């Protein structure tokens, strides 16, 4: 029984692991921290899995547990050295599509997002993942109106950071 549950969980996690990796990418600064957070999210998901009833999508359920772990449970180690290539990898595939100026702006925007506080970062993450405000509000535990208002403020803040003039 336990083995079946484990097999089912590992299969689902393997299929949906990108969600966790993307949360880790946004909330950590180097490979070591990324792995630590991935490990902690996996433990939290596994602990909560027996209560997963399947009436919600596994991926939706994962978003919540992964973000909650990043925002509340994860103790970031003091080693916050950012490795050079850690975030750049995301932009490697963009070089063919955009010119250097746009690519630079994207990098500035991405770095500005990484500098946001934990809660703002969670909002932006769900926005980047194309989640609607209903889902964002349910994940964060705020009203849809407040999620929308806050997101607009964060967007304004980010645009100002990228285009100071």
């Amino acid at each position, binding site marked *: 029984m336990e083995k079946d549950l484990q097999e089912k969980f*590992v299969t689902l996690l393997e299929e949906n692991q990108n969600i966790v990796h993307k949360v880790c990418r946004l909330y950590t600064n180097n490979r070591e921290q990324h792995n630590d957070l991935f490990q902690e999210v996996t433990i*939290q998901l596994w602990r909560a899995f027996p209560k997963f009833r399947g009436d919600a999508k596994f991926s939706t359920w994962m978003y919540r547990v992964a973000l*909650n772990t990043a925002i509340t449970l994860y103790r970031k180690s003091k080693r916050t050295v950012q490795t050079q290539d850690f975030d750049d990898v995301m932009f490697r595939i963009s070089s063919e599509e955009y010119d250097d100026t746009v690519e630079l702006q994207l990098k500035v925007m991405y770095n500005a997002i990484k500098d946001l506080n*934990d809660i703002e970062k969670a909002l932006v993450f769900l926005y980047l993942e194309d989640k609607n405000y209903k889902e964002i509000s349910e994940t964060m535990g705020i009203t849809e109106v407040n999620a929308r208002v806050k997101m607009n403020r964060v967007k304004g803040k*980010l*645009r100002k950071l990228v285009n100071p003039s």
Partner: protein
Amino acid sequence: MVDELELLKKQWQKQDETLPKLSKKDIYPMLLKKSSSIVKWIFIISMLEFVFWIVLSFAFGGDDSKQFEKEHGLQTFDTVILVLHLGALIFFVSWFYRNYKRIETTDSSKVLLENIIKTRKTVKYYIWFSMAFLAVSALIAFIISTQNDTGDFADRSMTVLALQFTAIMTVIMLLMWGFYKMIYGILMRRLDRNYKELKKMEV
């Protein structure tokens, strides 16, 4: 005007091929590892704080203190204090455990943060209670022992004794409170900050 956030969103959704790929073989051992979450630390440290007060209440049970209690008529008082403190301890530990069991990572971020903060606050109330209890019981013990004095305090004036008692109690209380606040800060700073940020959105 080019909207960088929209561009980034497109880029964000295309990053899958740059993400690490773990196999089932990599994931299985992860299930066996121990959590190092902040909730686990809150549980361990809170338990240590409960144990600290239990140890403290039994620490004065040695032969010397028993002799002192006998000489100063504090035996009944001491038993009453112990029973009251143990009763309060059972109440606070069960309250703490009830709150602790409510912590679920599948709740919304706000509810999760609320439940963690509520759990930790149970310990704060217990510490407040224990400190007040210690101060009041020490004061009563001081009054009883000076009234039943058999000679230990005879050479000192009541005012000096009262001042000494107040000074010692104040220092002990301040040290305990300072130590508790320091631990609270280390454990809860980030959680408090994130909870405030979520609450701010409601204004």
